[in-house]
């Protein structure tokens, strides 16, 4: 079936199988492999994208739901000068990246949070990241990075 949507600011028209997931469309059809598949069942958050302004698991989203939507992936995150977004800078500065597999999802959840809440409390940060699992770090550096990004945005 034919779907039309906006991905990272670009109009896309694609012919997809209805049982494909948004995750498969992004990775396999559009080649946007920054979005990761971890658990494939909505528990780890590695596949988080921003869908109509909200963070969602792209592994739970069937491709037909993309029709008429606006989507951002990690590839669409950049600063005003085309370089790194303040969130990406903060993650690097704070050493909030270890193996890096969860990082795109963490950044997308952070982006969704900071887009609607410029000064989140620590509790709000933890809540916003509660659907993103990191198996390397202890989350402290990630929370610190989000705080720093909020200050710099």
């Amino acid at each position, binding site marked *: 079936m034919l779907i039309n949507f906006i991905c990272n600011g670009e109009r896309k028209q694609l012919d997809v199988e209805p049982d494909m997931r948004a995750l498969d469309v992004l990775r396999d059809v559009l080649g946007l492999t920054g979005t990761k598949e971890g658990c494939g069942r909505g528990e780890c*958050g590695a596949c988080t994208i921003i869908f109509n302004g909200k*963070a969602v698991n792209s592994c739970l989203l069937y491709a037909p739901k993309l029709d008429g939507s606006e989507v951002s992936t990690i590839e669409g995150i950049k600063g005003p000068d085309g370089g790194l977004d303040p969130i990406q800078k903060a993650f690097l500065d704070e050493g909030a990246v270890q193996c890096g597999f969860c990082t795109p999802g963490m950044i997308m*959840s952070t982006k969704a949070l900071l887009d609607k809440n410029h000064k989140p409390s620590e509790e709000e940060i933890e809540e916003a990241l509660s659907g993103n699992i990191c198996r390397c770090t202890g989350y402290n550096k990630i929370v610190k990075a989000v705080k720093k990004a909020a200050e710099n945005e």
Partner: protein
Amino acid sequence: MEYLKPLKLKELFTMLKSSGKYGSESAGRGKYIRYIAGGTDLAVQIRDSGIKPSTLIDLSAIDELKGLSLKDGTIRIGSAVTIAEIAESKEIPACLKVGALSIGSPQIRNLATIGGNICNASPCGDTLTPLLVLKAEFELASDSGNRLVRAEDFFTGPKKTVLKENEVLKAVHIDKNNCTGVSFFKKIGKRNAQIISQVNVSVYMELNKDKKIVKIRAAAGSVAPVPLRLKGLEEALKGAEVKDFGLEDIYGFVNSDIKPISDVRASSDYRRRVTASLIYDILEEAANVN
């Protein structure tokens, strides 16, 4: 797999007529139609079972199923309203808000709908005990008209409801008169975030100035095949003060109402004890409410 996305109920009913029967699991032999709203439960069920429906009908774009409003003393929640919208709404009583917020993660709540949580009819669904104690009514729509069913009468077993073939949940109605008191939701799971309830309880109370319980409705989930009103507890607590009873008393009051099983998430005995503890915690909290 065929994917249909009606925009009006009328369109849905026309599709159902031409598509065959809903939910008959005769995969391979005939058509197997499933409804999808947020998809957060269904996508996992399909993945785990490996059985793909021949048709998915997406209900989330249907006009009549959208919107959360307060009108003529009734809160109307369209079945396609997301769990995140409910958690953020100012119109929604505390127990339902807290229950909604305890579901999954932000990513899940942004997709998942209240209609999905209700119609999935899991005994541990976290919006179900709040809906029971708020005396919610469910508006069911079909080609031949609408009917109202009390939340309490809707669930008939694990994953089973009174919904007939070709009937859909249109909206949830909550009478504001049933929300004038205080309400609480608590659950126990193995961690705080992203967790399925081992037990959840909701309590609605109207207290007088001496903290005497004038009215009480309580319910527990994951302790029986369906979310359950705790009638024995309600009977025992009505007219009492919130601090009149200890944990052992509460255990006695809930014990005959509930029939928990032991499963992968918790043992039956643990569920019995935790049901009492959660109720006890709620009464303590109520004692401290001004």
